[in-house]
């Protein structure tokens, strides 16, 4: 990965991802925080493209940038105005210390480990390979994931149903 374009793209997209993530921390209004989160997800989709993961990049755009951010906005408008404050609670300083320590530990582990770097090019395209793998080698997890999604949908509907339906005996 020595192309100048890839290097520039990596630094720009990383800056966008991390900068927007810091924006989520700094934003005072939670709707602004969600907008920063969307920018962070978009940067990550770009990073996936630089890693030659085209299918995952598109899935990231559709699911995170599209669906989950809309879901978060729906939850914000369905809850009270008072909770649109994005302030930190009493755990602010311990969380800050823990975050810095975890970042330091992960970065140390990443730099200190001798990774078995493979000498290969990126994938040409991954969508058909992933499709084959999902329906062949990973067929059982794939089916279980569909059951999980069904359970999540039914569970969400049951949870927020306005009035419990009376059973007539």
């Amino acid at each position, binding site marked *: 990965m020595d192309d100048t374009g890839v290097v520039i793209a990596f630094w720009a997209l990383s800056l966008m991802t991390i900068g927007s993530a810091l924006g989520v921390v700094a934003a005072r209004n939670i709707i602004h925080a969600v907008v920063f989160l969307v920018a962070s997800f978009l940067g990550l989709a770009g990073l996936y493209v630089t890693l030659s993961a085209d299918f995952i990049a598109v899935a990231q755009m559709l*699911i995170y940038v599209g669906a989950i951010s809309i879901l978060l906005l729906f*939850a914000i408008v369905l809850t009270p105005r008072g909770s649109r404050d994005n302030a930190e609670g009493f755990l602010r300083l311990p969380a800050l210390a823990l975050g810095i320590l975890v970042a330091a530990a992960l970065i140390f582990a990443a730099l200190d480990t001798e990774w078995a770097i493979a000498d290969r090019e990126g994938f040409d395209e991954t969508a058909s390979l992933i499709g084959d793998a999902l329906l062949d080698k990973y067929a059982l997890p794939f089916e279980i994931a569909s059951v999980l*999604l069904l359970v999540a949908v039914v569970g969400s509907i049951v949870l927020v149903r306005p009035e419990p339906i009376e059973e007539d005996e």
Partner: protein
Amino acid sequence: MSVDLEHYLIVSALLFSIGMYVTLAKQSFIGVLIGIEMMFNAVNLTFISFARFVESGDPLAGHVFVIFTITVSAAGAATALALAVLLYRVKGTIEMERMDLLKW
């Protein structure tokens, strides 16, 4: 100047710790969910960069695993947001510091 595995791992580590800070520190239930989604994304980035760079018999396994984590995080987000709406209905607030139903 080149981009290696370590660069991606550092980006992922920073994103994960920012997500963890948001999860622990934010007062609003929605803020906590935002942090959890950021941590999911950091882990996904790690999977994809290992799938791209590290020696493996099945380099595509990382991509397939990311699809499953995306599925699980979507299911989790949907259920958690339903819980947020329900909590607002029951307690009239979604501030984390008022979540004390299990406290005695």
